[in-house]
């Protein structure tokens, strides 16, 4: 499907591109790309690497030893945590848990867990940067949005900036997921500039054509110096695929969440800022809704 067809979606125009050309997450320690498809991706504007494969590998004994130590440490943690309880916490703590901070920004190493992208990758003119906020207590996503489409003859819409958490990896670079089944609400403390953002949750999928499935909801920020605490129930998240809202909706299963992302695509040119204090999950006892949208059947029931 060409980009122009995807770009015609009115609601999620700014959010489409990043799902196609999201910055591939570099591995911890600066190791090489994981999959072949990611290894072949070259960001636009970067020079082509014409070196033969054997020259691209940097052999370094110290790096190898450090890598082995890191993986063995992770493996040891993975083996010892079950002796304590589920997810390394005692069972009582798991049962009584009502709130959990999943991401907080207390140092430069916290920024390593996030990747930032914009439509610059497809030839656009938006810019997005991520840095620590004041006193190293928050993170600040800032930049400039520019909705001018790239002049490639086929792209009709553009203008998005996004920040997405990297896939969590356990020992030997295996994927691990968040288990948020004990919670029902996403809790954020943010300070925006009045622009509407989209929050995207990506669960673990099985089929390759589900890899762009994303559950999204809107984050309306208040401009101004005051922080806002946002609580969004998971039942409000709707299913989209490559930016298109799906007809066959279903609620988000919380037992295998991979990443969270924030996307700005409101088609308003100019600077933007979003400061995030923490991202957590909590259990709202008053919220009993399972899913906010109608699950209609397209055909008569067979």
């Amino acid at each position, binding site marked *: 499907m060409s980009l122009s067809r995807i770009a015609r979606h009115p609601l999620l125009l700014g959010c489409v591109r990043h799902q196609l050309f999201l910055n591939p997450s570099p591995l911890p320690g600066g190791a090489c790309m994981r999959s072949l498809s990611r290894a072949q991706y070259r960001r636009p504007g970067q020079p082509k690497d014409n070196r033969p494969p054997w020259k691209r590998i940097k052999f370094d004994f110290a790096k190898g030893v450090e890598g082995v130590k890191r993986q063995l440490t992770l493996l040891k943690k993975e083996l010892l945590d079950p002796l304590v309880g589920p997810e390394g916490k005692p069972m009582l703590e*798991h049962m*009584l848990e009502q709130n959990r901070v999943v991401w907080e920004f207390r140092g430069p190493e916290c920024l390593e867990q996030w990747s930032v992208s914009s439509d610059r990758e497809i030839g656009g003119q938006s810019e997005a940067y991520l840095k620590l906020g004041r006193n190293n207590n928050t993170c600040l996503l800032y930049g400039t949005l520019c909705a001018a489409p790239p002049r490639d003859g086929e792209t009709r819409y553009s203008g998005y900036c996004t920040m997405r958490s990297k896939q969590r990896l356990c020992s030997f670079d295996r994927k691990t997921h968040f288990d948020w*089944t*004990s919670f029902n609400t996403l809790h954020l403390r943010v300070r925006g500039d009045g622009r509407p953002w989209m929050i995207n949750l990506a669960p673990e999928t*099985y089929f390759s054509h589900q890899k762009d499935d994303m559950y999204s909801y809107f984050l309306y920020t208040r401009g101004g110096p005051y922080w806002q605490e946002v609580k969004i129930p998971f039942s409000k998240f709707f299913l989209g695929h490559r930016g298109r809202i799906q007809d066959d909706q279903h609620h988000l299963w919380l*037992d295998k969440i991979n990443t969270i992302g924030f996307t700005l695509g409101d088609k308003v040119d100019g600077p933007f800022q979003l400061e995030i204090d923490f991202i957590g999950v909590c259990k709202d*006892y008053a919220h009993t809704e399972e899913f906010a949208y109608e699950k209609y059947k397209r055909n008569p029931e067979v």
Partner: protein
Amino acid sequence: MNPFVLSILLLSLGLGTTLTFASSHWLLAWMGLEISTLAIIPLMAQHHHPRAVEATTKYFITQAAAAALILFASTTNAWITGQWDINFNLHAFPASLLTMALALKMGLAPVHFWLPEVLQGLDLTTGLILSTWQKLAPFILMCQIMPVNPSLITFLGIASTLVGGWGGLNQTQLRKILAYSSIAHLGWMVLVMQFNQQLALLALVIYIPMTFSTFMIFKTNSSTTMNTLAASWAKTPALTAITPLVLLSLGGLPPLSGFMPKWMILQELTKQGIPLTASVAALSALFSLYFYLRVSYAMTLTISPNNLNATTPWRLQTTSSTLPLAISTTISAMLLPLAPATLALLSP
């Protein structure tokens, strides 16, 4: 689902298993296995959720691979021995291949990896059918091909009991707990199958009501995690009091029914001169007992000091019949006094 379609699928499920039960030809047995696999596929995928479709696909791939292995093994046996009869003694190689294929069908370790993920993707009713009815046909085939490679069978049994216990230790998802419970129980059945098939059948006959009770209890509470189970005392206090009995019966504690097969299996293994295997199996049962106790603790033995971690529904009069659950929990908890009569029936 449309009631006609549902009835066709359920009847096909029954047909497939019955066909396998009644067959003496390997092709017919294979056909029965395939029919039951294909019949449950629409039941698993009916909700169209991605996880349900994922579970269905994984189930189909593993079961189809196992069925293909069964067909290959039976064809090889027919080529070598000239016999398609199930009751005829198998050649060594096809016998081992058939054992592994049936182990894959049932979800025995070390080919058990599909079972927790598949059960996690299903609703409780379909998971119940998968854990109970779908085990019957491969189980009966496995009984009929005995005796095969004793080392292989013992390895499958011990590995399953260990994996079933270890794997379920830190689970908080109830369906995965029941998956590992299924693996462990099947391990016990397979261990004794080579010596006394009636005992294996007894273990299966006791396992089915216990699992049925557990699934129905979770369905009544609409719980799929341990945290939501903690609110069941407000929904169904009587059931909350009975559930530990069912869970401890699954764990094999006397004086509950689940103790009977474990006791007899350990006795048989000791009689056969493999006390070490019996000891390892008994010790591995402790792992399983731990997570059954943990579920009982979360559900019955504690009341959360803060607000309940789940919603309490309106306690309206139930429209569904509770008779099957009542019968199965009674069977799960109170059949141990029948042990002498059972022993007398089983002895030649």
